[in-house]
């Protein structure tokens, strides 16, 4: 099987942040080697070693993985035009930066989240604002010309001034790419139990944070190319773009998801099981109709109009007309796009437009 996009999941972390809902593992440092072995085994089973367009190493904290093991993994991966590694600022040393670079990594996504120390504590992040700037410097010195910063907004206690300061400091660092996510307080998580009430109290005040993010970043010259993603100089996250364009992708590692033709599958989230080569995959069959609806759902996240050809059956004509009347969407026949306000309301508009 030959896919163009490969996702590799590295679950290890020093600490699990309260708001995190990814498959992560702490206190399993002795397993790094075995885990990389297992990844390479799954890769060999699923991929023919031919070159791909993009590879993304996500986590967890990929850069928390013992460096020799991480490098062994990177060197075994197929060649790719874009090879991204996620990193936590406190893990980025000059050495790590150099080693990643020499192992073929050409893009690093740095989890900054916020530059306010007290808000970092709320998020249970271990990095300091200083760590972010230092890591950024090391990566630049190692020759990286495609860096992304992750920001989180809507943190309990975050004022509009904090948000403005975060955006200003992020822009000042000059990353090619910025992802800005609203904090999702998932019901039942440790985080929501601790902060849910405060978030509810602040909900009204935070309602325009999304607009503030978009306004500040576009004013600073970034392109708002996806709901939560901004780039300069055309440097979109090519790997993620593949998701949004509805392309197939192979995901390897614990809990990793692949979409291959009419099949979507998820590996077991249990490390012990995965290490034994038992993927215990949960399989979802995607009929044409479902894939079409996903194409619309994902495509409308982008700033480029969605080519509607072949997707009409996934659209609700009445809903679409309604969205147009409200000035939220523009149907040009061959393409469909959301207006600026439509993009702020993207979830609701998509629910309206989808059949």
């Amino acid at each position, binding site marked *: 099987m030959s896919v163009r996009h490969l*996702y590799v999941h590295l679950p290890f972390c020093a600490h699990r942040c309260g708001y995190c809902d*990814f498959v992560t593992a702490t206190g399993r440092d002795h397993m790094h080697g075995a885990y990389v072995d297992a990844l390479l085994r799954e890769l060999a089973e699923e991929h023919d070693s031919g070159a791909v367009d993009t590879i993304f190493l996500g986590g967890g904290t990929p850069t928390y993985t013992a460096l020799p093991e991480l490098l062994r993994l990177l060197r075994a991966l197929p060649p790719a035009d874009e090879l991204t590694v996620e990193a936590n600022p406190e893990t980025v040393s000059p050495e790590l930066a150099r080693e990643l670079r020499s192992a073929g990594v050409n893009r690093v996504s740095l989890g900054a989240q916020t530059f306010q120390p007290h808000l970092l504590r709320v998020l249970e992040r271990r990095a300091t604002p200083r760590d972010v700037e230092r890591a950024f410097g090391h990566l630049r010195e190692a020759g990286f010309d495609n860096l992304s910063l992750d920001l989180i907004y809507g943190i309990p206690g975050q004022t509009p001034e904090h948000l403005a300061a975060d955006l200003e400091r992020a822009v000042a660092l000059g990353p090619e790419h910025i992802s800005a*996510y*609203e904090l*999702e307080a998932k019901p039942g998580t440790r985080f929501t139990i601790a902060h849910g009430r405060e978030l509810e109290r602040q909900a009204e005040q935070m*309602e*325009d944070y*999304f*607009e503030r993010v978009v306004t500040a970043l576009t004013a600073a010259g970034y392109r708002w190319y996806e*709901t*939560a993603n901004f780039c300069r100089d055309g440097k979109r996250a090519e790997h*993620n773009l593949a*998701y*949004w364009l509805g392309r197939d*992708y192979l*995901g390897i590692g614990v*809990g*990793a*998801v*692949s*979409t291959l033709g009419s099949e*979507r599958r*998820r590996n077991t989230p249990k490390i012990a099981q995965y290490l034994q080569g038992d993927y215990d995959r949960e399989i*979802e069959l995607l009929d044409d109709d*479902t894939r079409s*609806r*996903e194409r619309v*759902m*994902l495509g409308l*996240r982008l700033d480029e109009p969605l080519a509607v050809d072949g997707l009409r059956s996934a659209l*609700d004509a009445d809903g679409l007309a*309604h*969205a147009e*009347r*409200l000035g*939220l969407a523009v149907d040009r026949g061959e393409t469909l796009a959301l207006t600026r306000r439509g*993009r*702020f*309301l*993207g*979830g*609701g*508009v*998509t*629910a*309206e437009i*989808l059949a």
Partner: protein
Amino acid sequence: MDQSHIRNFSIIAHIDHGKSTLADRILELTEAVSAREMREQVLDSMELERERGITIKAQAVRVSWRGHELNLIDTPGHVDFTYEVSRSLQACEGALLVVDAAQGIEAQTLANAYLAIENGLEIVPVANKIDLPAADPVGTAVEVADLLGDDPTHVLRISAKTGDGIAEVLDAIVERVPPPGGDLESPARALVFDSSYDQYRGVVAFVRVVDGSFSTREALRTMATDTRFDAEELGFFSPAMTPVERLAAGEVGYVVTGLKDVSRLRVGDTLTSVRQPAEEALPGYKDVKPMVFAGLFPTDSDDYPELRDALERLKLNDAALMYEAETSQALGFGFRCGFLGLLHMEIVRERLEREFDLDLLVTAPNVAYRVLEKNGDWLEVHNPSDFPREVEEVEEPYVTASIIVPKEHVGAVMELNNDRRGTFGRLEYLSPERVHLVHELPLAEIVLDYYDQLKSRTRGYASFDYDLAGFKPGDLARVDVLVGGEPVDALSLIVHRSLAYDRGRALVEKLREEIPRQMFDIPIQAAIGSRVISRETVKAKRKDVLAKCYGGDISRKRKLLEKQKAGKKRMKQVGAVEVPQEAFLAVLNIGQGQKS
């Protein structure tokens, strides 16, 4: 049994003053049922009645006491059924007036006692619950005796709970209540004082034979509605159904009619023989008309056929229930139902939900209006959305409200009645502590939360009863509620002009809280005609996005959107605005619970 050994009586008592317990003790003592067999409170047959402590349908039980045949005729205990009560009382020669010795007389008891006196019944007063530490048998006896112009020593003092004094009660019935009159030789006449529907045997009539006699299989007819049937079975309750060949003047019993529709055999009608008919019907028959109306809609529109069937079946048992199909753009298909009063409405609603397992949305109740249109025609309106926007004149039903309270709460009651457009009628002291107040009030003002307000403003001490007192002109206006510029028919209401602003504002504010924010501003307005009297806005959402969406998130996000989409489809559409059914529900609930 010859008439001189028959006694027909009923028990008048306020809820919880011990009517059912007394009835049970009487059955026990006369060995109509053994204590072991007896479920408590045999007479209240419906589950609902048990729970609410009220009796909906009258029944009659025959017992023997010292060579006499005693017929205990049960009466409904609530104001909505005054007419049925009056028919039940008409079937008796005497009544036990039971008063809780710890509580004293309540408004309802008073109303029914007056009704009994008007019907010429011999009243046997009873102070019950004398075993309670808080009981004041002497004071209660004085209060009751005052009311009846009787001697306090004639007031029996009993405890139905302990059984103390029950034999004396039965003796007093035999001694004080006169035997029935009536001519055995005249053409047969019987008063239908109640009926019920049995799915196998059809309508069963409860009758008091006044003249002549009836035999099994005889051809019978009703004199007011001219319904004809054969008496399939005659009998009495002991309390089990006990067939007999003949029911004669003075006796109380049942007639199995085989009729399939209870509305063909109306309470208050006179039964006679087809072969040898009586010339004159017994007096007092009335065609009772519903005065309180509400829309009943299934929460799930798929349940409409079930609701229709359920109403049909209830109607078999409840001649006073009226309904017609109604279509609301906001609530879908349902029925506009007419009730005798609020309790009747509550009972119907609960029976529909409990016995038929239906989830219902009930609109705020309104009363019947008489409207003089511009063209000079009078129109009766049962639904605010049918109320013409331009009218010449409007009349609304009034009631005479009778309230008994401890004297320190008189001010609070006066104030409430003033707020509710009441007119003071009279005030009398029942005892140095307790006052009987009479006001005239528009029925519309008591169908909302009047009783709750009365209770809360008098710390629960007030008791209340009312009687319809005809139609009177009123300065009434129709208030419409508009959501996103579209009128919502189910929320229209008719109110007195002086209250229109407050009611409109309350509705609009509640709707603003209940309607979820959408992708555009939603104005919510209350208007009289084209004049907006209140306005709120549900502000448009500023963001609605699924934050992160990568390879591992797609299925979950898609399902989330599908759920959102399905949720949209379940919403009621008012123009472009999606309104969750719960919003209507919440608004209709405040309609019933709001402060005026």
